[in-house]
């Protein structure tokens, strides 16, 4: 079996536990589709963060992405999500 979803992905159980951790009501549950979609959301979040940070590093003519590059793109990233 090749790697699922063409590469890395958040495991459904991890996403489920992550969300459940912050639910205020114990009765709140998550549908299977919602978990899958949230895994996608998180994947996009991480990839956007990584790609934007790498573009920032590229703009500064560097090929190693440092925290400062991530910090520079962080505000816009959070606004976009």
């Amino acid at each position, binding site marked *: 079996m090749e790697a699922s979803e063409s590469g890395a992905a958040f495991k459904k159980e991890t996403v489920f*536990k992550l969300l459940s951790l912050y639910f205020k009501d114990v009765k709140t549950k998550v549908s299977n589709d919602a978990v899958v979609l949230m895994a996608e959301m*998180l994947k996009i979040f991480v990839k956007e963060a990584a790609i934007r940070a790498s573009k920032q590093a590229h703009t500064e003519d560097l090929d190693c992405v440092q925290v400062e590059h991530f910090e520079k793109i962080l505000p816009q990233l959070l606004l976009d999500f």
Partner: protein
Amino acid sequence: MADTEEQRNFTQTQRLKAAVHYTTGLFCQEVAEDKEVEFSKQTIAAIAETTFRQCEIFARDLEAFARHAKRTTVNAEDVKLTARRSNALFSFITQRSEELVSNNQEQKEKRKKAGGKAKKKSDAPLQSGMDEDEDSNMA
């Protein structure tokens, strides 16, 4: 015994953070290969930490949306609402959601034809041991 429960919550949080960190590392590796750059360890850690904290915002939003719709189960519609801020993101999530729905329809029809036990998967609350859906997401 509040201490033990606190400790247990702490350990679980640590484990979740570690899981997020690991997967974040994998994603960064993919991007690194794609864009031909390198990510410092601190950067990966920072992205992982931010993702972890963003989950809290997502979770609270999802719960609030579901409650607003007078439901106890968060569903795909709630997730779509969470993606409302960016048009591109919203379109992407809506598209994925529709793919999932059509996949579920197909699987339901297959099961009906096979005449096996009818298992409702798509909108039922998540239980452990669901492996089939991961395959259906291969695009």
